[in-house]
């Protein structure tokens, strides 16, 4: 039995990850009555595994990236049996930024014009230049660190905080890139180099992708949400949204949600904003079918859930005959390279990849890497050499641009449900031949970058099955309701008081780590809602 909760709010936001946090802060500061519903709860920096000496074992299960392995109460199962990869996420206040590395590169100008430049996919309805002021505003708010003037970008790219040290590992990677005449630039990270608002200075723990014990990484439970709460945001944790409720007129009226005891509630809202990531948002839209929206909410185009992009990751770990202090962060990117970002048909594929260098902390992790050499090299007499290599390692890693394909999609599984009986998402994702070519090319280049500066051992991984946390494209934006789900301000073509503000919006994915772009889009969506409030289908 649903209970009606409190008063109708102006704006109800589903999810408190980067996009939800930015949208919430923007709208509450603009004077609206805003509520966020979050299925997880708070994580304290003192909770993170790196606080304990057994952290390398904790990340294998209890703190794994893959929710199907981790299986926390806030997680929901993903049906991945027809997918080449297992998407990852973190379900908590702050969303998956709890577990991202804080790498903060913007998309390049070409990413917004793939159709115009490469004759494939679609152009975005907005441009690099239109996005820039939103990026700049978010960067200032969270205190992004970096070096101004990256030559991979148009002039005018500056950062509010100084960079982090390259460290010995980063210097080694830079030497490799220089030897090959590659572009590289000191890492741009959403990690504070000095005390900034609610963020602490980086302590170089090196475990950013498993939570920052220092509270320096801009996870959005630590920045934006605290400021939003201070400004009056209402936040309910342990609140799992099961559907967006629409009326006979097709407009959103609010959401049904389930609390941590399994009780059902209804929260009314003038406007609903979905920020539940590229899988969760598509799932929720498909769950919200009705007589007016028989194929799922906002789905007259049939594109909700389709065009899922996951940025397949590949890596090459390299070990050297010199100490590289491999346990020292940030991780975070020590540097990035955009050398192979844009299309060069001589390479045999379209679009490209973004590379970055990272530390490789932990002796058990080093032993795990050496398993690829076989039993004799890892165990027995080989064990000690494998463990002792831990301080001389450096990781080159890539995000690969996977192109949007309608067959890569999120649907509702007919059998699997979460603990509240809500259908689980089914992920169908297959690597294209173009993507496989980029992955192979990337591994060759990263191996080259190691070998040119004397790596004695390299360990390629051509595809990380359990790494894709970049969940993109499943509610794409565009000007044409027949070929897109929402407009360039995130407003659903079919439901004028429903908005999407997360990675689902992205038309193409580029290969830059996307949280930076997601937050700029969320800021743009939220400002659009605020600026046009009087003209909404439901005026605010």
């Amino acid at each position: 039995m649903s209970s009606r909760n409190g008063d109708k709010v102006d704006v109800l936001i589903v999810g408190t990850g980067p996009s939800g946090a930015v949208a919430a802060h923007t709208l509450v500061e603009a004077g609206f009555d805003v509520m966020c519903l979050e299925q997880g709860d708070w994580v304290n920096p003192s909770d993170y595994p790196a606080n304990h000496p057994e952290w390398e074992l904790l990340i294998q299960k209890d703190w794994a990236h893959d929710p199907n392995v981790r299986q926390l109460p806030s997680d929901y199962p993903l049906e991945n049996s027809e997918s080449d990869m297992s998407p990852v996420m973190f379900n908590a206040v702050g969303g998956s930024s709890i577990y991202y590395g804080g790498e903060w590169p913007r998309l390049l100008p070409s990413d917004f014009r793939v159709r115009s430049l490469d004759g494939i996919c679609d152009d975005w309805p907005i441009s690099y230049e239109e996005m820039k002021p939103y990026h700049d505003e978010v960067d200032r708010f969270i205190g992004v660190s970096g070096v101004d003037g990256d030559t991979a970008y148009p002039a005018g790219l500056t950062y509010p905080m100084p960079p982090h040290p390259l460290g010995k590992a980063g210097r080694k990677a830079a030497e490799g890139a220089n030897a090959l005449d590659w572009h590289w630039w000191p890492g741009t990270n959403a990690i504070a180099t000095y005390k900034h608002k609610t963020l602490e200075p980086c302590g170089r723990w090196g475990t950013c992708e498993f939570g920052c014990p220092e509270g320096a990484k801009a996870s959005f439970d630590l920045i934006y949400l605290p400021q939003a709460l201070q400004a009056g945001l209402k936040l309910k944790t342990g609140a799992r949204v099961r559907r967006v409720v629409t009326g006979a007129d097709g407009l959103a009226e609010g959401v049904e949600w389930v609390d941590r005891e399994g009780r059902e509630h209804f929260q009314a809202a003038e406007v609903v904003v979905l920020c539940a990531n590229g899988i969760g948002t598509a799932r929720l839209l498909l769950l919200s079918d009705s007589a007016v929206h028989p194929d799922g909410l906002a789905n007259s185009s049939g594109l909700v859930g389709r065009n899922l992009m996951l940025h397949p990751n590949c890596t090459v770990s390299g070990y050297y005959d010199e100490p590289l202090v491999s346990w020292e962060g940030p991780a975070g990117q020590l540097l990035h390279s955009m050398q192979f970002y844009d299309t060069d048909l001589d390479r045999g594929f379209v679009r490209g990849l973004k590379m970055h260098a990272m530390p490789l902390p932990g002796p058990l992790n080093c032993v795990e890497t050496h398993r690829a050499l076989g039993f004799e090299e890892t165990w027995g007499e080989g064990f000690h050499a494998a463990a002792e290599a831990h301080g001389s390692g450096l990781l080159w890693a890539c995000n690969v641009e996977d192109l949007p394909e309608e067959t890569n999609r999120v649907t509702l599984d007919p059998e699997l449900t979460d603990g509240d009986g809500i259908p689980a998402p089914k992920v169908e994702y297959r690597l294209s031949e173009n993507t496989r070519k980029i992955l192979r090319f990337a591994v060759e280049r990263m191996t080259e970058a190691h070998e040119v500066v004397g790596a004695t051992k390299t360990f390629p991984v051509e595809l990380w099955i359990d790494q894709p946390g970049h969940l993109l494209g499943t509610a794409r934006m565009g000007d044409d309701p027949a070929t897109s789900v929402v407009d360039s301000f995130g407003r659903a073509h079919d439901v004028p008081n429903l908005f999407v503000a997360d990675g689902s919006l992205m038309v193409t994915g580029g290969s830059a780590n996307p949280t930076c772009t997601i937050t700029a889009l969320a800021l743009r969506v939220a400002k659009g809602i605020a600026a046009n409030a009087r003209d909404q289908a439901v005026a605010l």
Partner: protein
Amino acid sequence: MSPYGRTTAAGKLSVPDYLRQPPRQPSAEERAALGAVADALIPPHGGFASPSQVPGFDSWLDRALAARSDAIEEVTAAALRFGAVPAEERPAALRAYAEEEPAAFHTLSSVVAGAYLMIPEVRAAIGYPGQRKHPPRFDEAVEQIMDGILDPVIERGPAYTPAP
């Protein structure tokens, strides 16, 4: 009720319960078997005895089993199986296990190696300080890019593709 539980034992949703001790203490026989497996995988080296003979190994083994409390029955059962194998045949038996049941071997070997690599003296010997706060000097970042290492990139100039 969620298949993952409505909440953790501590009443949390997004934070797993942290266990300093395994959900049950291994029996003496299991402990001996785990030590035997560890000794087979990690022979004496550089002044260190076999893992089971290093002071403190048992307490770190408990910590490792606590961290993988989900697998304690699987790990102890496998250890008993290989603990019963004659010592001289144990490495070969473990090698065959690694080939035949790689996931199970992965868990077993991670737990015993993880325990060994937590021993403070072992960490000191391999030069691992553990993950900890170690902020840079004020001028460290500048120092590391002002020696000309970035100059080749800057000298090549803009490298992006203009877009219409």
